[in-house]
């Protein structure tokens, strides 16, 4: 596992924050990795994420059945949802699909939607944030104006609570997986934009920026190869943490019925809706997908927080 940390891009080895004596002369990336390796929660998080990704990728190899197939619908009656058996290790669901298969393929849906939506938010957000932060840091008066304009737009986006923003986007795009992904991605844009901008502005007065300026480097070069690599750390942490919320929100929006209209689709949030009606007799229908969502979110949260502490030891409490 290699970590995409600032100094890995080869720019300034100027460390952020105080440097412990034994870390003197070690790049920020290596120091972070060293601290991260010693954090047990980081390992727990990494193992959970590893398992989740493995299950998502290998789903077709782990189950002999097709996802969202309601082949066994005849076996499900109004009073009985068949429980675990030799053919169906976790039993059937309400629509007569194999529960284990649905869960495994559900990991696939969650991973895909979670990663793509976070990437949308990350890319659009960092582009906006880098533009605003770069302009604000080295762009002079015009830059300050550009910065202020972008940030007012971001403020407006931030004034709409994220779930509501997601819901309104899904309302325009219609009910589909794409709508969910775009919606959750869009809701993340202001967070990333503000974060990157503020960490870039915090770097604006640093000696290496003044030095680069004095050397006569072009401003675009200062932003791209000096400011950006040194400011991107908190953004990476945020992206890891956002993957956790994105996976929960994907489930939430499909729970609300904004995802694919197909009732038996292999999606954890969707599975919870169906499970609710048969909760009293077969609680596993709701417990399994619910726990799957929570554990996956836990993995990303643990790793994200360990990464934050490793990158900036001062944040440890």
């Amino acid at each position, binding site marked *: 596992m290699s970590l995409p940390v600032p100094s890995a891009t080869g720019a300034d080895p100027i460390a952020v924050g105080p440097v412990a004596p034994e870390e003197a002369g070690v790049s920020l990336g290596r120091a972070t990795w060293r601290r991260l390796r010693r954090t047990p929660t980081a390992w727990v998080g990494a193992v959970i994420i590893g398992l989740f990704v493995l299950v998502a990728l290998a789903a077709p190899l782990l189950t002999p059945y097709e996802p969202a197939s309601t082949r066994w619908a005849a076996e499900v009656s109004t009073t009985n949802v068949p429980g675990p058996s030799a053919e169906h290790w976790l039993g059937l669901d309400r629509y007569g699909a194999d529960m284990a298969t649905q869960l495994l393929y559900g990991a696939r849906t969650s991973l895909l939607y979670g990663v793509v939506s976070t990437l949308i938010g990350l890319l659009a957000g960092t582009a906006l944030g880098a533009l605003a932060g770069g302009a604000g840091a080295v762009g002079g008066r015009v830059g300050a104006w550009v910065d202020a304009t972008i940030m007012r737009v971001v403020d407006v986006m931030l004034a709409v609570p994220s779930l509501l923003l997601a*819901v309104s986007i899904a309302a325009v795009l219609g009910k589909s997986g794409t709508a969910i992904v775009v919606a959750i991605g869009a809701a993340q844009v202001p967070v990333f934009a503000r974060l990157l901008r503020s960490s870039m502005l915090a770097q604006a007065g640093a000696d290496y920026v003044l030095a680069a300026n004095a050397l006569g480097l072009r401003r675009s070069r200062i932003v791209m190869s000096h400011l950006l690599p040194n400011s991107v750390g908190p953004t990476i942490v945020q992206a890891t943490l956002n993957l956790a919320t994105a996976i929960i929100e994907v489930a939430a929006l499909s729970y*609300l019925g904004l995802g694919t209209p197909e009732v038996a689709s292999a999606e954890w949030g969707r599975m*919870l809706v169906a499970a609710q009606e048969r909760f009293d007799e077969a609680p596993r229908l709701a417990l399994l997908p619910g726990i799957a969502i929570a554990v996956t979110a836990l993995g990303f949260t643990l790793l994200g927080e360990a990464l934050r502490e490793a990158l900036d030891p001062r944040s440890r*409490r």
Partner: protein
Amino acid sequence: MLRFIARRLLLMVPVLFGLSVLLFAWVRALPGDPARALLGERASDAGVARVNEVYGFDRPVLEQYGVYVGALLRGDLGTSIQTGRPVTTSFLEYFPATLELALAALLFAVVLGVPLGYLAARHRGGLVDSVVVSGSLLGVVTPVFFLAILLKLVFASWLGWLPSGLRQDPRLDATHVTNFYVLDGMLTGEWDAAWDALVHLVLPGIALGTIPLAIIVRITRASVAEVLDEDHVRTARAKGLAAGTISRRHVLRNALLPVMTTIGLQAGLLLSGAVLTETVFSFNGIGSYLFGAITDRDYPVLQGFILFIALIYCLINLLVDVLHGVVDPRVRVS
């Protein structure tokens, strides 16, 4: 202080203006003819013409925007396409429910969260701390709707201790004045109705309040831990002040600033997060109404609600800043 509030109110104007432009553009950016988008595929030509006339889609865009903002300033948020009722009217009917729920959730989160966070910070590294920190982590990663379903199953279906949904037992046939059911019961002297409404708030309140609780615990813990390490606290101890005085006047007062910001932020989020909780508990608030509007593509309703919630969000932020100024005189100067 008044100048401070006035300046902050003034700063809200551009944000709300921008939002109104975005929302105005939103409905017009819908694929196809707005009237058709509003009425659906099978709309008759007469219906389309009528909508165009009512909403003024046939007039110049700037004029349309002027009419829209003019109506907004008069408190007119538009008319629902589905029900034909003014959005403002529905709002006044459903908003109290959500506010009641959000207050219950916030009360649960603050009353439990601040002491727990304080306790964890005081015993940093100990057993209490570990339990509180792991608990709050669990609270953050559990999806609201999953928790809501679990609570409903255990405490309503299995144990039968609490009602599984709705705001009040309809058999009580309680009188409603303000639509805040608990308050209504107290105002009219129907104490059983007030109690019943309160009992109906317990499970949804806990479900909605858990994430804010977890976040408030973590922020309080971090903030108190930081203040405890500061020189002025050591000085206070060295002076021989009573432990209680140090906690109240030196630690909590300083540690509560970030906590208040968090509470304010969470209060805003609660209003929108209520959608999920209200759906699980069939709690007739803005969430369920909004959800219905999404399903029916009732754009004027969505538009009005989003604007209203954003306005409340801004006002809460203002309130938090003002409270900051009250607690910390340094804020007022800057």
